[in-house]
């Protein structure tokens, strides 16, 4: 009789163990996805500021607009840590100020040399927004999982740092839509 009970207890323990390790795996995969998403976002931000620098360095725009974009893009590219979100949001603001009106952008596009620059900038403005949303989505689901009792009790997240969403004003310029 005792042998059966022991066998049953062992079986339950094994099921619980499997379940916990499956949860830990899920969490691990999420952490990995967050790293990948963050990498994508950083790359998109770099591409966007790069495209802004490129159009500002061309002679397509008036000098004050070029100054604004150069300044904001440089700030964004050299920002670190906590300053990054502010600097990138300010770049978004500067981009919206310069590319506010669709008719001005249409005028810019009349120069064939400028068309690819505008196209690239428009594309990366949109992609930054997408990358930020996808990143934050994973962060939110991983946070939900990490707040579960089993994860906290068994310390399944190990020493992973707390998860932070990226808060960024990344509304693309209306004129580039």
């Amino acid at each position, binding site marked *: 009789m005792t042998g059966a009970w022991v066998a049953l207890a062992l079986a339950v323990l094994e099921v619980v163990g499997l379940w916990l390790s499956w949860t830990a795996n899920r969490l691990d995969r999420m952490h990995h996805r967050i790293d990948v998403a963050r990498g994508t976002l950083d790359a998109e931000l770099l591409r966007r500021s790069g495209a802004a*620098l490129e159009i*500002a*360095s061309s002679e397509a725009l*008036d*000098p*004050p*607009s*070029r*100054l*604004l974009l*150069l*300044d*904001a893009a*440089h*700030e964004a590219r*050299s920002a670190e840590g906590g300053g990054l979100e502010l600097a990138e949001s*300010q770049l978004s*603001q*500067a981009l919206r*100020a*310069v590319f*506010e*009106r669709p008719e*001005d952008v249409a*005028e810019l596009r009349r120069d064939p040399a400028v068309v690819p620059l505008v196209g690239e900038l428009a594309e990366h403005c949109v992609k930054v927004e997408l990358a930020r949303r996808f990143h934050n989505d994973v962060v939110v689901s991983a946070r939900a999982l990490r707040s579960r009792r089993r994860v906290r009790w068994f310390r399944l997240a190990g020493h992973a740092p707390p998860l932070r969403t990226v808060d960024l004003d990344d509304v693309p310029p209306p004129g580039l839509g």
Partner: protein
Amino acid sequence: MRVGIVCPYSLDTPGGVQNHVRDLAEALIGLGHDVSVLAPSESDDLPAYVVPAGRTVAVPYNGAVARMSFGPVASARARRWLNEGGFDVLHLHEPATPSLSLLALWAAEGPVVATYHSAHPRSRALSATAAVLRPSLEKISARIAVSEDARDTQVSHVGGEPVVIPNGLYVDRFADAAPRPEWRGEQGTLAFVGRLGEPRKGFALLAEAFGRLAVDRPGLRLLVVGGGDVRQAAALVPGPVRDQVGFLGPVDDADKAAVLRTADVYVAPNTGGESFGIVLVEAMAAGATVLASDLPAFRRVLEDGRCGLLFRSEDADDLAGRLADLLDDPDRRAALDEQARTVVRRYDWSSVAERVVHVYETVVRA
């Protein structure tokens, strides 16, 4: 001469550059020149010589959010103003910012004069922005700085030799201000202008010297103009004579002129940090005798004591002694005031505008 002036900042808000542009334009018109000012503004109530260039947009730039003019609309307006103006010379203020001045410079073809007002540290992105600015800035034939500091900023950013032409003032606005009998002291009236609680303005030194003089002169009054913590400043004045000091706070230009006009002696006890001392000239214009610390800038303005008295900087004894001498010697004051009256004419907008016209003539002829 037909002169086109561009002001980068909105005339709808107060500011040093805006005042400068307005005063200069009026002085040039007074000298018989034909002046048009292009400036951001959405107001309907503008002087006849102003052409409004519309709105500005708030954008982050160089670490702050500033109101700027840029883009095709502002650009087209600047171009149209230039085409219709047919100016002999274009005079831009602060052209190295994302402003109307830079837009006008971009479109300019004739002789260009630029005036730099601010003394600012290098922009972090300057190395990159310099490349954008260079082709436009190369069109500038003459550079003016309004102060030594602004000049040094220019020299360190782009080199070269800008000339310094300081801000002018309208001498008559001070000379013709009405004195206020209710502010006057029977045994003399002193005036001080400067932000309270800023040690380099030297109010503490004046409070100490005044305390020594005023105990024996119950009819002596001190008028203090300037923002800051009045209670803290009043505590610096010895108790028995505290009610002989009138703290007027930050007053407008008309009241400042009235204070200086009411005062017998204007005291400038500054201990440093002054590059020019326009308020000394204002005091002289209003007919107050100036007693100032012997800082190099003040020494220059007062011509080594010819048109105002100097005391040893940071020496309250010397200040009190000289102050007593001046108060007791009306003839001495009259002689200094006589000198001062002729000297201040040099700082009047009419003379300053003439110096600016000399700059115009040099570049137009070239």
